[in-house]
């Protein structure tokens, strides 16, 4: 697979690799994909009291496009409100990275990851209120 420069850049220098405390009530964790399918993404976000994502970390098992998609996603969600972050579309990620058609599913997975992380955060907030 020959990739564009943006995928290679994110692959060689992935941004925001790491782990946040999944038990922290301000942290939402989204893990999507499956080892048998060849890709698993774990995206974590830390949300401040204003509902703004102030930190995002990821780890990804997968091909170059999967790693690049999740790395780019962490850059995009930081500083966004949950509402704004939830609106990120896989097509925008795919376009930015110039993913080849056979790799579009990697950007779909990244979109699922942010949605899952937001949902996890919101579920936790519900639990704390109750």
């Amino acid at each position, binding site marked *: 697979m020959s990739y564009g420069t943006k995928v290679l850049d994110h692959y060689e220098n992935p941004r925001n690799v790491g782990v946040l405390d999944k038990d922290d009530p301000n942290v939402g964790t989204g893990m999507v*994909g499956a080892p*048998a399918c060849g890709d698993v*993404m774990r995206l974590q976000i830390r949300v401040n009291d204003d509902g703004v994502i102030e930190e995002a970390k990821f*780890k990804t098992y997968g091909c*170059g496009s999967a790693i690049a998609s999740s790395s780019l996603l962490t850059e995009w969600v930081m500083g966004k409100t949950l509402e704004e972050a939830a609106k990120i579309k896989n097509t925008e990620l795919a376009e930015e990275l110039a993913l080849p058609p056979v790799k579009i599913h990697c950007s779909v997975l990244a979109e699922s990851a942010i949605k899952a992380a937001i949902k996890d955060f919101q579920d936790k907030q519900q639990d704390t209120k109750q």
Partner: protein
Amino acid sequence: MHLPIYLDYAATTPVDPRVADKMMEYLAPTGKFGNPASRSHQFGWDAEAAVEEARVSVAALINADPKDIVWTSGATEADNLAIKGVAHFYQKKGKHLITSKTEHKAVLDTCRQLEREGFEVTYLDPEPNGLIDLNKLSDAIRKDTILVSLMHVNNEIGVIADIAAMGELTRSKGVLFHVDAAQSTGKVAIDVDNMQVDLISMSAHKTYGPKGIGALYVRRKPRVRIEPQMHGGGHERGMRSGTLATHQIVGMGEAFRLAKLEMAEEQTRLLALRNRFWDGLKDLEEIYINGDLEHRIAGNLNISFAFVEGESLIMALKELAVSSGSACTSASLEPSYVLRAIGRPDELAHSSIRFSFGRFTTAEEIDYVIPLIRSKINKLRELSPLWDMYKEGIDLNTIKWDSH
């Protein structure tokens, strides 16, 4: 040392410079460029002599009679000609064939085509070590079985089948036996008589010859009949028409002549290199060799690096030329069917890399490659959520993944 380092000899080999030099003599106006079928002048006679000399060399590598060698465009065509040729000729005798799930696509897709034509095919399951159980083969043979087609050496995992035992079985049951030897010529000794084989497919470009040329051995004693698949001028005793590609044939002949001379020494050297390679990696956690290590050609090592996806590892190893069983390196998004067939879980198939070593691989290259692989594996594992979970002692099989 040149970068990138070529460790994909199972995909193709470079043409040996000695072979290339010889091929050059059969192309230009000052060379022997004639059509070997031209019977009326020196140009044709010279070309024909060269083709026949090459035929002797190819036959010698498998201890066959040169008259039993039919030139083809490669192993794919040889597989097609052998399997379809036998099936079409003997279909009144029976319409059942046997092969295995780990064969090359040239065999599998040919069998699929025959199924569409009304033949029945049994696809044997290999054992977890990649080899076919002789008893299972024996049980699969029926009264209407006309052909067994099995490979000598597997292209992905390099395991060597016991062809002699299979040949003894098929001969005793009166069933024809075709062997795809694309990956074994020059690596494992082949003797058509000791092995009791009826048809053998061969390729030049896996054995330091040029691409675009191969051969099919078709036994004449006892006689094996095949229906031609390419019709025309009646070349190759009517079995494969088409003007012979003299320079390609000369290349294959010279490559196979050298293979016979140098095989023993070369395999010893390659085994030492492979051991050196494996010794440098084997203490890494959670890595697995795919396929039997003992019954295996010296030049192949197929390793799964758990928790690291194959394509991303290939990207990280851009100074190496290797191939992966990961879906992400194929258009189909399916991981290697060979690794699946030997029972490897999909996640290990996605994490597999095939390293294949050959004539021009050096110890210096191996020593360069080992620390490179180690550091990239560690880097990608640091990036892998699965590695984190493994380190935390979580059994990944207990997690409910959302398959997509």
